[in-house]
């Protein structure tokens, strides 16, 4: 039996539709560069969604999600270089399969631990992968990485391709809508997951592991499944990111990439659904413009991080939600 949709769900769907409408007109009103930046932001937002299933909903802080992002990116590069694949749909399937296999394997090692032990294990395993990407340079291209030129990528089963020297603008516009569609599907799927009995069970484990165990929940199985789903989303993000970047290098497997995912969550707020996505998009702009303004861009980001943790521990979206609640209560008290 199904219940009717709650009014809050209808309101949220309306808000999501408004955001989607705004995103749909971006290529028409913004230039190619801004569209490209937002495409980067959306791919990172998908990674943030996956990352936050672990941090925000399961209570596990991973410092190794670069592994799954990199797995998705390298899967695309390998498929293009060694199998001659050009279809973005096949790339995504390959990225999902590769990151799923990797997160399933790493998850078995990591999910029996929590807190610092979990964080260190995820970090260590991702760094093993980073080292392998350097050492097996005849496969991975070593520090030079592997090129994934957009001109060799086709979308929608080969219906859309980008031949010729002037195809960049067309690629950016088409690819923006392609990534936006993937982003919408990911958001809808993740929304369903975190509001499903499985998602609620993850939150229960996060809040009180002992009690969850005494409901008969096999904790590590649920954590492993969350780890797997999280890895798949992050891997898909890596697959979508690499044609945009045109190249994948071992840097995507290195720990600062994992640190970025943590930054997304802290910036936007990891105790709400939209926070990490908003954090990812804002971080992308921050990084790009901070690099353009100063060579000490990491310092700028560091100061922002300290300010966030000190003054906005709930992140931008968390703080905004609290402000709205406060205003509502004040209005309610006044009327």
């Amino acid at each position, binding site marked *: 039996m*199904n*219940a009717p949709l709650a009014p809050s769900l209808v309101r949220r769907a309306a808000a999501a539709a408004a955001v989607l409408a705004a995103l749909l007109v971006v290529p028409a009103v913004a230039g190619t560069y801004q569209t490209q930046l937002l495409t980067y932001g959306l791919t990172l937002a998908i990674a943030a969604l996956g990352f936050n299933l672990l941090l925000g909903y399961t209570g596990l802080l991973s410092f190794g999600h670069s592994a799954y992002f990199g797995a998705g990116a390298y899967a695309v590069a390998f498929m293009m270089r060694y199998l001659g694949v050009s279809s973005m749909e096949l790339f995504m399937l390959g990225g999902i399969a590769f990151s799923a296999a990797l997160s399933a394997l790493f998850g078995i090692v990591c999910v029996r631990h929590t807190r610092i032990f979990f964080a260190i294990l995820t970090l260590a395993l991702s760094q093993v992968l980073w080292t392998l990407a350097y050492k097996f340079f005849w496969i991975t291209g070593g520090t030079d990485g592997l090129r994934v030129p957009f001109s060799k990528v086709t979308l929608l089963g080969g219906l859309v391709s980008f031949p010729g020297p002037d195809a960049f603008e067309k690629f950016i516009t088409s690819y923006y809508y392609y990534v936006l569609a993937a982003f919408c599907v990911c958001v809808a799927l993740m929304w*369903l997951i975190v509001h499903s009995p*499985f998602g609620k069970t993850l*939150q*229960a484990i996060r809040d009180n592991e*002992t*009690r969850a165990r*005494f409901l008969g929940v096999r904790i590590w199985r649920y954590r492993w499944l969350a780890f797997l789903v999280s890895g798949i989303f992050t891997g898909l993000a890596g697959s979508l990111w690499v044609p945009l970047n045109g190249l994948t290098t071992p840097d995507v497997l290195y720990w600062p990439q994992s640190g970025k995912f943590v930054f997304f969550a802290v910036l936007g707020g990891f105790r709400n659904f939209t926070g990490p996505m908003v954090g990812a998009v804002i971080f992308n702009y921050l990084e790009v413009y901070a690099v353009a303004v100063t060579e000490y861009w990491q310092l700028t980001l560091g100061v922002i991080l300290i300010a966030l943790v000190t003054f906005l521990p709930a992140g931008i979206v968390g703080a905004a939600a609290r402000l709205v609640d406060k205003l509502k209560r004040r209005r309610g008290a006044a009327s």
Partner: protein
Amino acid sequence: MSLLRTERLRKRFGETRAVDDVDFTVNEGEFLSLVGTNGAGKTTLVNLISAFLSPDSGRIFIADRDITYAPVDERIRAGIARSFQLVNLFDDLSVLDNVALAIFAREGKSRRIFRLAERDVAVTQEAVELLGQFGLGGKAEGLAGGLAQGERKLLDVAVAYALRPKLLFLDEPTSGVSTRDKAQIMDTVSSVVRAGGVTAVVVEHDMDVVFKYSDRVVVMHEGRFLADGPPEAIRNNADVAKYLLGTDADA
């Protein structure tokens, strides 16, 4: 007919014999109180039976099935559920979700990943009804963390009860609440549990509560059973008077 049986169950912490070769039987349908001074071994005994701790030796049977080394989830499937001395809830989830999660777990629906939890009417309806039985119907939408202490105690029991156990262990369900709330909690718990035909073992310190609500009382002292019988017999037991009630007849 006995529902639960332990044979020479033992647990030591260093030199301390917390549970010392205990043979414990719980009969089907009874409301049993487990009492004793602090450190008598009551909670340790419950922890051993519910798989919170592993015994050093001895056996545990539920309906003649050996569950001595069964993990928690297997014991729950066998019909054992428990509440906790220190309230153990999912504070950041709603009161309704706390109970619904137990129902999802019981029904094997916890792994459903592509379906909204709130759209499962059968589970939601059962959770709402159960909260109503425990007097928490009006609090369903609020966060569990926002409940008053007495309500939290009731919700703790409701979550365990939602697993539809055969045998429910309640570890000090009235600790830390006012005298008035104690009576309300015990009235509610005993009526729901009895109406549901669930066998209950209550760990309790308050002897007024024990004598009022129990069918049978088991008294523990230094890891062993000191007395076992109906409330009136326990009230008049000289050993119990000496060690527990502080009303030594010889004094």
